[in-house]
């Protein structure tokens, strides 16, 4: 019946993510557990209309209070001729996120030690948005409750404590230049309303150089403000970007905004865990990014960032210097080598040095072998610590991928027992029988810790056991 109506009435589609787990959290003194997480998104679209619902489910035993079945999102959208009207759960970002930022981290199912219930990691807004835009200007009004990081086992009132009203407008002049004005009213339970104002300018300075400037502050308090400036451009084969930030007492509510971090988020395992998380309460700094492409196809990249936090009389300065060389041997074996040196007082890591080598070696037209090696050392007050990470991946086109991941650390913050080293060994087997289904099986033990994805950082837990993830689209 659904299929029959599909062709007549509109387009029906959906995705499902099913993830059963069996195992244990090695840091916790409890028995092994079995759990099931499932997320279904159903979408129906007909011409300018779209309707969508998201259902989340977690089950970890017959009488567990961590279980839930939740209609976590619903959306009605009308989009036509410049109009975009949305009612329900929406994602919006105002400017570069100084005032408001929603996000959805794809594939990130998180579990927090305090709640021990698994849920999708996202920050959406429950309410409505009306937007009109054309080639000259854009106006938008939003009224919504902002989702915090409590899992669906909590009541709606506890998960959405911030209410925001936003009016925002952008105007284009000289075709490529843009000015934006943003107004935000924020209320949370038990506190007075706060008003914020933001302004942004962006556009090209020359044909190869462009700028972005955004300033926001609390309407009646100059002590609560945020400035972000970005320049990017290119000269011949050299591309560059320079960004500056100055954030002062600029956390809105329980964190509905997220000013740009201006610190590179690397996908390399050890560096990703070391990503600096900005503190908009008091942070200033800059980031310089350079990339030079050689005629041979080789690329040399350099990144330097500095973030300074002042808390009372204490000053913390994060510094990072990163250099990456991307090349290939004999035209068919690409590799990347990187070296990173950082000072990270927030993580109590001094003289942090990280080296890495990644390569992809074709074994035949269909088989590929990819070794990934990383080594990191740093000084703590208690002495020197090291992290090692090795992954060996064997892939048959994109259909079947087997990866063995071994990690080891001597960081006293991460060692669980009396020994002086903690080891992790696990394997992933990914199978894509077609473009609609992906199966990924994990077995063994994997290291948790901070993880950063799509510019947002969160914490994942160590896990030992078996986990299957089945993603399907229909």
């Amino acid at each position, binding site marked *: 019946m*659904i*299929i029959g109506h*599909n062709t007549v009435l509109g387009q029906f*589609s*959906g*995705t*499902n993510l099913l993830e059963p787990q069996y195992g244990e959290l090695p840091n916790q003194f409890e028995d092994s557990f079995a759990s099931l997480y499932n997320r*279904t*998104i159903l979408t129906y679209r007909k011409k300018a209309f*779209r309707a969508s619902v998201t259902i989340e*489910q977690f*089950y970890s035993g017959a009488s567990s209070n961590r*279980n839930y*079945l939740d209609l976590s999102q619903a959306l009605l959208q009308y*989009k036509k001729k410049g109009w975009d009207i949305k009612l329900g759960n929406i*994602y919006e*970002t105002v400017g570069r*996120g100084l005032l408001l*930022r929603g*996000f*959805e981290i*794809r*594939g990130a199912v998180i579990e927090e030690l305090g709640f021990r219930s698994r849920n999708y990691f996202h920050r959406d807004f429950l309410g409505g948005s009306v937007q009109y835009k054309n*080639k000259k200007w854009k106006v938008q009004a939003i009224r919504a409750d902002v989702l915090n990081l409590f899992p669906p086992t909590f009541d709606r009132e506890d998960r959405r404590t911030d209410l925001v009203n936003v009016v925002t407008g952008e105007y*284009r002049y000289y075709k*490529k230049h*843009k000015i934006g004005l943003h107004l935000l009213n924020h209320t949370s339970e038990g506190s007075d309303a706060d008003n914020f104002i933001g302004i942004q300018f*962006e556009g090209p300075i020359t044909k190869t150089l462009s700028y972005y400037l955004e300033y926001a502050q609390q309407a009646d308090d100059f002590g609560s403000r945020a400035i972000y400036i*970005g320049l*990017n*451009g290119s000269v011949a084969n050299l*591309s560059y*970007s320079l*960004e500056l930030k100055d954030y002062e007492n600029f956390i809105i509510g329980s964190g509905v905004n*997220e*000013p740009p*971090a*201006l610190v*590179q*988020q690397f*996908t390399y395992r050890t560096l990703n865990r070391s990503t600096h998380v900005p503190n908009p309460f008091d942070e200033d700094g800059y980031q310089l*990014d350079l*990339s030079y492409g050689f005629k041979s196809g080789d*690329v040399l*990249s350099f990144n330097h960032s500095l973030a300074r936090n002042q808390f009372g009389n204490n000053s913390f300065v994060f510094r990072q210097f990163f250099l990456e060389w991307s090349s290939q041997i004999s035209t068919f074996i690409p590799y990347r080598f990187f070296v990173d040196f950082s000072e990270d007082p927030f993580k109590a890591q001094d003289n942090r040095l990280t080296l890495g080598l*990644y390569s*992809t070696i*074709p074994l035949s037209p269909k088989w*590929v072998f990819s070794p990934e090696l990383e080594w990191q050392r740093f000084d703590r007050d208690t002495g020197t610590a090291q992290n090692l990470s090795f992954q060996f991946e064997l892939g048959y*086109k*994109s259909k079947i*991928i087997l990866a063995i991941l071994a990690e080891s650390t001597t960081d006293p913050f991460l060692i669980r027992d009396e020994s002086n080293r903690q080891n992790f060994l696990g394997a992933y087997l990914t199978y894509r029988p077609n*473009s*609609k289904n992906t199966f990924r099986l994990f077995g063994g033990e994997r290291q948790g810790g901070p993880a950063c994805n*799509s*510019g*947002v950082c969160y914490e994942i837990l160590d896990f030992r056991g078996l986990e299957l993830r089945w*993603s*399907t*689209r229909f």
Partner: protein
Amino acid sequence: MKHTYQKYIIFCLTLLCFCSNANAQVIDDFYLESTDSELLSLDEIKGSKLTIIDFWATWCKPCTKAMPKLNDIYSKYKDQGLSVVGISCDGPRSISKVASVANSLEIDYTILKDINCEVMNAYQYQAFPTLLLLDEHNEVVWLHEGYVSGDEKTIEQEVADRLD
């Protein structure tokens, strides 16, 4: 409560079975800003016969490995009616690098910026990179997720087969 779960699981499985033959998706027209600060619609930049849409991000290494290969395919087939559109899903943390990364990779095709990743979210694509091949009616005729060396041959074959 137990019955509710059972009903839900049965509902999901039934829906999966029913919908496994659902029609291919059609990508509706959208407006996004290019790295040249121009507001462009899909209809303005799509190919006369085929369009590749590549969802990527600057922090995604497989994405930046795939892009030069897509550029080669674009150069080879653009005169036969192929267009390639890269849609960056970089958020506020990394959106400033989109233009410089595309420049350093010497990408000739159009790169659009989608700070909220609205287009990708609207069609529920989950992986980076996700590559869509659209026909002249914007219908998704082929989809590919991820990138490993050698995938470019499969992509080119799909393009060539449909341009013949």
